[in-house]
């Protein structure tokens, strides 16, 4: 078993998702079955094969390196759950 209670807690923490005990158990089961299933990729010989990260066969042009000032902070803040004086607001981090 690749995923145990400690591992699921660690991944949940890295993902910033709180899990209750029942969920943890379910995900341990799900993730182990998925990881066992993807294990079959080990049958494939990938020696000297370059990993493929961009599938596009077209030439991807670079854009000119210039800055643009859209001055859109009001727009950007429009959907914020909490804001204060032109900034996003979050719970206090420093005591």
């Amino acid at each position, binding site marked *: 078993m690749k995923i145990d209670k400690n591992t699921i807690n660690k991944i949940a923490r890295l993902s910033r998702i709180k899990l209750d005990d029942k969920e943890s158990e379910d995900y341990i089961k799900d993730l182990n079955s998925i990881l066992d299933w*993807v294990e079959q990729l080990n*049958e*494939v010989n*990938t020696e000297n094969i370059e990993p493929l990260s961009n599938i596009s066969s077209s030439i991807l042009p670079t854009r000119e390196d210039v800055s643009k000032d859209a001055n859109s902070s009001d727009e950007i803040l*429009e959907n914020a759950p909490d804001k204060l004086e032109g900034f996003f607001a*979050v719970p206090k981090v420093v005591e």
Partner: protein
Amino acid sequence: MPKSSLKQTLKDLETKKISIRELNQDYLKRIKEKENLNVFIHFNEENVLKQIDNLEKDNSAKKLKGIPIAIKDLFCTKSMPTTAASKILENFNPTYESFVTQKLLDEGSIFVGKTNLDEFAMGSATSTSFFGNTINPLSKDNEPLAPGGSSGGSAAAVAADLCLGATGTDTGGSIRQPASFCGVVGIKPTYGLCSRWGIAAFASSLDQAGIFSHNVEDASILLQSIAGFDQRDSTSAKVDIPNYFENLDVDLNGKTVGIPKEYSIDGTPMEISQIWEDAIKVLEKKGVKIKNISLPHTKYALPTYYIIAPAEASSNLARYDGVKYGFRSNEIDSLDEMYENTRAQGFGREVKRRILIGTYVLSAGYYDAYYLKAQKVRKLIADDFNKAFKECDFIVTPTAPSAAFPLNEKQNDPIKMYLNDVFTVPASLAGLPGISIPFGEDKNNLPLGIQILGKHFDEQQVFNAALSLERSYE
């Protein structure tokens, strides 16, 4: 009443046989009648009427002027909220318009509403939506069927004749599979043909926008409207977009179709093997050479996909933190608590499952064994297609391993659910264009789909073959 095509409607509007208002009122009426299908996450009649008012004042000629189009609720729209079918974006009102929807607006189309989908496009039945299931319009009264997914709402909107076309996105089959389940046409173009700008990201190396329509001609018109280069998407392709519709040519004489032997999978229903054979016979009669090809890494496509897609999703979905937009939990004793509770309460089960698996395969010590390995196998899968396309002009396969299944069918086993994408995922990994067209029925008179795959940026060949098959079936 027979469904009117986009092509015919454009003519009727031009010859003033019908007005934009009359046309859209007809669609509005049907949308209201079919509310029980839960096709739309957002529908607002007044918004549609306002669009009609504005177009009536507009004297300029526009290619899609007055055409009712449904938009998958993964595309950001300024005039309507955008949720990605997730609680975490429940109250999100984009302040900008996606590239694809802007193009459709520029051409004068009318957005009738935002369609339902699997949460963040993760699913194959439109069953993971925070806003409930969409019902396949072809369902019998006693047994509601799934419309497929993730673009199930868009496929259902076209099937129920609630619009003349709809946008979708396809990461591993999310346009082609629901098109097959709902008996409509669905095309996923080559990766990079349509800008991803303004589409809520799922797996960026795979996500691609596309079109649902009543028939192949309509799809060719609509795809041309949404394709094009865009500086704001770094993988957007700078290629010439041909006039697909004008260039349609059903003469396939002398072309070669590839039939991959690896797509004959144990357990595929007989009816699906049968329509595949029928399609091949039809093509043979039209003078197409039949070439048996091999795509030897096909069986590894699904496990490859289910490493790469969740890995990219776990990274893309990190932005939903309760700070910048969307839902924020009330339990916020500290900043970390806020993040963890917001994401725990804001995401559904399947999305969390994929974030967790993606985080695991990217985590220290496992990256090489899973993510890098999957990217290498992806290369082999893409190479398989490159080799095959040296011997054929296009490839024909079934679209999905089943017809639409009942909505209440238990989908507890994630791997069983993932198998829905077995015929669509390989082309997604290789970035190839693919279309699904209705072709035959199963014993319960449910539609089945045939998939046609083409070379990169050879959408024209895909459309030509699709039109030829469509005409022989009708």
